[in-house]
C-alpha cells in the first residue's frame, strides 16, 4: 500500500491471482496455469471451493436484483475481479437499462480484462484501485463522473474482505465509504467464514494455498462480519450463509453452511 504513486504494478502471470482463481472455480477459462494449479490445490484441501464460489456469485446476483427492486440504479463493485459470468452490470442493466456500474479492482489484469468487456458501455466502467484506499476510490474521476453520491448507491464488497486482514483496518475503510453515501444507499458484504467447519486442517491448507497469492486469507465469523455493517440497518435475513439470503426456492438454501461464505445487505437509513 505504501507503493509510491508513480511506481507501476508488476504483471506476473506466474503468480496466482485470486481473481483468476475465482474465475476458475466458476468454470471460466480466464486463467493461467499458475492460477489453475493454485485453484486445484485449494480444491484438494476444500473440495467445495467451486461450490462456494458459485453460491457466493448467486448471492451477489440475488442481492443486485434485490437492490434494483429497491430502486437502486448506481453500483460500486469493489473487488470485482474478472467480471465474466453473471457480472453486476449485466444483471443490473438487464433489469434496469439506466443502471450505472463502476467496477474497482486492484489486479491490473482483471482491470484490463474488464475494460475490454465494458468497451462501448457508457454506463459501466472499471478503475484500478485498492479497497484499502477508499478516499482514492471515491475521488477517482471515473467514479465521480458515473456515480452521483447525492443519490443512493449500492456498494458491493463481495468475496473480498477475507483478503483484508484487521491490520488493514477494514472497519475504517467501510466507515469512510459509508460517510460518502446518501441515505437509502446499500452495502453488500460477503466473505469466507469457518464457523461450520470443525476441520481446522482444511482452513490451514486453504490459508497455505492463498499465501502463494498477493492476498492471504483472513477468515471471519458472523459476528465479525456483522460489525462491518455498523451504521447500516441489516436487511432481512441479516448476515447468514449466503444460500440462505433470500433464496429463490427453499431447496436452494439446503446445506447452506457448505457454501462457507457468509453475507448480508445493509441499508443506510436517514
Amino acid at each position, binding site marked *: 500500500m505504501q507503493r509510491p504513486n508513480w511506481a507501476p504494478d508488476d504483471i506476473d502471470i506466474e503468480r496466482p491471482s485470486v481473481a483468476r482463481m475465482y474465475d476458475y472455480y466458476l468454470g471460466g477459462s*480466464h486463467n493461467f496455469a499458475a492460477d489453475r494449479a493454485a485453484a486445484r490445490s485449494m480444491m484438494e484441501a476444500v473440495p467445495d471451493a467451486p461450490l462456494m464460489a458459485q453460491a457466493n456469485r448467486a448471492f451477489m446476483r440475488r442481492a443486485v436484483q434485490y437492490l434494483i427492486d429497491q430502486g437502486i440504479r448506481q453500483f460500486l463493485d469493489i473487488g470485482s475481479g474478472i467480471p465474466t459470468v453473471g457480472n453486476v452490470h449485466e444483471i443490473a442493466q438487464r433489469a434496469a437499462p439506466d443502471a450505472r456500474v463502476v467496477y474497482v479492482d486492484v489486479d*491490473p489484469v482483471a482491470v484490463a480484462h474488464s475494460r475490454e468487456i465494458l468497451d462501448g458501455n457508457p454506463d459501466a466502467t472499471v478503475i484500478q484501485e485498492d479497497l484499502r484506499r477508499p478516499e482514492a476510490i471515491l475521488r477517482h474521476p471515473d467514479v465521480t463522473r458515473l456515480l452521483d453520491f447525492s443519490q443512493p448507491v449500492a456498494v458491493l464488497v463481495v468475496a473480498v474482505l477475507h483478503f483484508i486482514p484487521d491490520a488493514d483496518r477494514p472497519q475504517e475503510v467501510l466507515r469512510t465509504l459509508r460517510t460518502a453515501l446518501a441515505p437509502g444507499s446499500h452495502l453488500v458484504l460477503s466473505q469466507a467464514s469457518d464457523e461450520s467447519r470443525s476441520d481446522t486442517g482444511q482452513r490451514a491448507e486453504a490459508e497455505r494455498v492463498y499465501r502463494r497469492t498477493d492476498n492471504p486469507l483472513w477468515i471471519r465469523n458472523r459476528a465479525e462480519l456483522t460489525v462491518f455493517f455498523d451504521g447500516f440497518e441489516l436487511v432481512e435475513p441479516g448476515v447468514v450463509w449466503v444460500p440462505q439470503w433470500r433464496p429463490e426456492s427453499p431447496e436452494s438454501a439446503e446445506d447452506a453452511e457448505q457454501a462457507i461464505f457468509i453475507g448480508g445487505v445493509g441499508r443506510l437509513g436517514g
Partner: protein
Amino acid sequence: MASDDSVGETAAGPRHSSRPGTFARAWAKAVSGTSYLPMTQAQLEALLQRLTERLAAALRAEPFDPRVGHQVGAELVAAHIASAEGLGRTVEIIQLRLIRDLGLVADDVEDRMARLLSTVTTGYARALRDRTLDEQESIRRAAMMARAQAERALRDSESRFRHQATHDPLTDLPNRTLFTERLTAAIGEPARGADRVGVCFLDLDRFKVVNDSLGHQVGDELLVSVARRLRLALPEHLVARLGGDEFVILVERTTRVDDVVQVAEAALAAVGEPVRVDGHELTVTASIGIVERPVTGTTPGELMRAADSTLHWAKAAGGARWSLFDPERHRTELARYALSAAIPAAIDRGEFFLDYQPLTSLRDGTVLGVEALVRWRHPELGILGPGRFISLAEETGLIVRLGGWVLAEACREAESWSGGPTPAPFVSVNLAVRQVHRPGLVQEVRALLGRTGLPPERLQLEITESTMMSTAEEPVQALRVLADLGVRIAIDDFGTGYSNLAYLRDLPVTELKVAGEFVTGLRAPTVDPASRTDERILASLVSLAHALDLTVTAEGVETAGQADRLRAIGCDAGQGWYFGRPGPADRLLGRAPALSTAAVGADGPAGV
C-alpha cells in the same frame, strides 16, 4: 408419437415455449451446481424447456437433421452450462429420460437417440473448445494490455522521475544537475562549430530583503516570476536555477564575448520589469557574472568558479549590472585566498616574526618604546609585510589567532630587553577590532604578563578609533581593567577616523598616536597655507592631549625638519624612518637613533 399435452410439451416451434415440463425440470436439477449459472432456477428451466422441445422435434424429424444437436450443444455452452460435469449429466438425462418423459415413439428411436447424443456432444465440445480458446485469448490479451500499461507507467514514471531529478520544483526550471550535465557536454563533447561557450551567473540584488520583509511566500512567487521572464526572454538558451535566487544561463556556440553580453543585457531587462506579487509592486535588479571562453582548456568547475567570482564583482560594484571575467583580477583574488588559507599553518610552522620600530622622545632622543610589526617569512613569496595579509586575516577572523601570537611574541621578546643601564622601552602592539571585542582579552593579557614576567607598564596596546565606535560596553570595561593593571592604551591613527572625542572621556587612554598624514604636511615650507593648517591641527591636538594628561606620538616622521617642528609644537615623541626603520629588536636596541638634536648617540637605550 405421444400427446404433447400429457407431458406439457408443445411442438408449436422454437419461438414459443410452454411451461417447463418434467424433463426440463429434471434436466435443470441435474446440471445445477456443475458450474456457475448466471440465472435463476426458473430461467434455467425455461431455457432447458426450449432446448427440450428442439431435441424432441429433432428426434421426430424426417430426415434426421444433425444441426439441431450441434445447436443445442452450443446453446448449452453459451448459457454457461459449460463444464465436463454439465455435459455428463446432460447426456445421462437425455439418454435415460427424454424418450420416456416425452413419450416419444419411433421405430428407429434408439438409432436416432444415439445420433442425437452424438451431435449434441459434438456441438457442445466444439463450442466449449471455442469458448475456452476465446477466453484464454481474452485473458492473455488483458495480461498483455496490463503489462503494456505497466511498462508505459514505468516509462512515464521514469521520465517523471528524471524530470523531478533535473528540475527545480519551485520554478520548474532545469536545476543544477541538468545544467551541469549540459555544460559538461558542451565542454567535453563540443558539437561542430561550438568551440566556445559562455555562461551568465545571475543573482537577484537584495533578494533577502524581499524575503525578510514580505515573507517567503512572496519571495517564492517573485522567483517563479523571474524564472518565467528569463525563460520567455531567452528561449534559445538553457536557463537553470541553482538554488536560492541564483540562476545561470548557458550560452552555447558563442563566437565572442559580446554574444554573452547581449544575453546578459536581455536577462537584466527581463528581471527588471516591474512585477506584481501578492499585491506588492516589486521591481528587482540582478547582478550577472559573465564568462566566455574556448571549450578547450577549461572545465565546467573552473568555468563556474570564474562565473561565481565575476558575479561577486558585479555585486561589489553595486549590483544591477553585469561584469566580465578578468583573469588577472581572478588570479589576484585566488592568490589572496590562497594566502589567507595558508595563515594557520604558517603560524604553526613559525613563519611569522616581529620587527620593531622605535618611538623616540622628541625631548631627549631616548627610545621610549617600540612598535611591534608582524612579518611573514613565506616559503615561496619571501618576506611579506602586514599590508599583504592583515586585511585578509581580519576578513576571515584569523586575525584573532595571529594577533594573539603577535601579542605573546612581543611580550616574550620585550621582557628580555630589561636589565640594561637605562630603562627598557615599552613594546606597543596593535590590537584588531575582533581582538578587543573578544571576551577573555583581559585574562589573555594578564596570563601573558604573568608568564613572561613583563611589567604591565612596558606593554602598550594600540587600538584604532573605529574599534571604539561600537557602543558595546564590554571592550571599554576590558580596557579599563587593563589600564588599571598598568598597561598603556594608545589610540592609533588618531584624527583620521571618527574622531569622536567623547570616548577620550570614558577610556583610560595613555597616548594618542597622530596619523602620519598630518605630519607629511610639515615637510612643506612654513609659508605653505596647507602646511600651516596641518601644523595648527597638530598643535591643537597636542594641547588637547596634554590638557587631558595624554602623551602624543607623531607617526610618519621622515625628516629632521618635521622632527624640529613637532618638537616646537610640544609633541612628545616621534615614529618614522627618520628615527629608525622597522627591524629586529637586537639591531634596533643596539644602535643609536638617528636624532639630530638629541645627544644620545651611541649611548641609546640599553643593549640586550
